[in-house]
């Protein structure tokens, strides 16, 4: 069926309706306005990326590298590091950068990529972890992994995701974006993926369950926190600005 506006009859009037003139308040504000520096999304992206990078960079500088690093295949170390890096860059870019010709980032796309990043991070750990026998610490059971090693790596991820979400809320607070939970999930997942990258070089604990559920789980938890916090933080920032 061909869908045309003519079929909707008088509703065509809603396509364009004679507006009242701008209010006196608005006219007064416009009359006294000064030039403003407009937003540069790439700069905003860099600011959020730097906020996310502070803790892992400090961590890499002060903590010793994992002892089994020399015993692991270089191709695996590099390829897994590239996946973690992509997990950081792609969701973060989609959450902050609009498509060409647009003002707003595409929340739906960012949300889909955040979900994909979570899934990839968990599966990467569960299916593609390689250990160096005798050198890598491998938990003897899933229960032991949760009890002794899980929280340390997840909390490392939170120390990256949370600053990223806070700074993202600051840069997005006046942009009137939609789908904030999806954007928050993307920023949080990106933070978790950066943590995964740092832990890939730092964490002495191996085993598929640990890498999948603690390092990959950090991405999921980061995405969840971002999805919950970003809308609240942006609204809070908006209310402050309205005062």
């Amino acid at each position, binding site marked *: *069926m061909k*869908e045309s*506006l*003519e*079929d*909707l*009859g*008088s*509703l*065509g*009037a*809603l*396509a*364009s*309706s*004679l*507006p*009242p003139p*701008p*209010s006196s*308040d*608005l006219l007064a*504000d*416009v*009359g006294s*306005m*000064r*030039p*403003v*520096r*407009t*937003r*540069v*999304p790439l700069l905003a992206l860099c600011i959020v990326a730097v906020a996310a990078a502070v803790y892992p960079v400090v961590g890499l500088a002060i903590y010793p590298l994992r002892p089994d690093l020399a015993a692991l295949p270089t191709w695996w170390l590099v390829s897994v590091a590239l996946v973690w890096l992509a997990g950081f860059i792609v969701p973060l870019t989609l959450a902050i950068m*609009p498509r060409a*010709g*647009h*003002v*707003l980032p*595409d*929340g*739906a796309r960012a949300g889909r990529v955040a979900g994909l990043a979570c899934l990839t991070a968990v599966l990467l750990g569960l299916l593609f972890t390689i250990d160096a026998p005798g050198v890598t610490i491998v938990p003897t059971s899933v229960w032991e992994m949760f009890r002794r090693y899980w929280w340390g790596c997840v909390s490392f991820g939170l120390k990256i995701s949370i600053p990223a979400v806070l700074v993202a809320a600051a840069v997005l607070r*006046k*942009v*009137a*974006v*939609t*789908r904030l939970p999806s954007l928050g999930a993307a920023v949080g997942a990106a933070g978790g993926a950066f943590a995964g990258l740092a832990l890939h070089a730092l964490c002495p604990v191996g085993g598929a369950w640990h890498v999948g559920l603690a390092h990959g789980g950090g991405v999921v938890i980061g995405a969840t926190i971002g999805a919950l916090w970003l809308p609240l933080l942006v609204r809070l920032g908006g209310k402050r*600005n309205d005062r």
Partner: protein
Amino acid sequence: MAQRATPERDAEDAAELAALMARYCDGDARAFHALYAALAPKILGYLTGLIGDRATAEDLLQQTFMKLHQGRASYVRGANPAPWLYTIAHRACIDEIRRKKRSKVRLSTDGTLPREPAADLGGAAEAAGATSNEADVERGLAALATLPALLREAVLLTKIQGRSSAEAALIAGTTAGAIKVRAHRGYVALRNKLLGATEDEGPAAALGAVALDRVELQ
């Protein structure tokens, strides 16, 4: 009626609006007035269709442009400001609906909600040469008001305002696929209603098994 623009015309319009917005951000008040003249009629039509009340829509229009003014530093140079402005209007409308829900509700003696005043668009349709009469427009708005909110916004954005599915998705905060489905369902329901289909084979039938009657604007 909205003009069905070609992609070239759309691109020209977008470039023109982007240039106006850039000048506005540089402090040129004339650019603001040109932008208002270009976009306020469309935004007002969208808000009227969404909220069903011309007076409230006019208030929301002022709020929308005030928010644009306050947030103009968030503009990205070179971008088409129209979808962004629609998004601001959409958010203002949702806030208004939420505010109304939170405020006290007057019930009639039989416990039903009083009907909201219908929009007064008589004589305001500039594009169509103001040929449609007030009763027709009221009938159209009444039919639009019977649609679930998500279908209504999709129809307004794509069929009436002529935005692309991708733009409408960005404005409404959903996916382009969802917008296409909702716009089609809404269009069918609205067309049946306006062409005088019976209640049984009208909107309810057109909506099929999709129980969207309780969904709210997001």
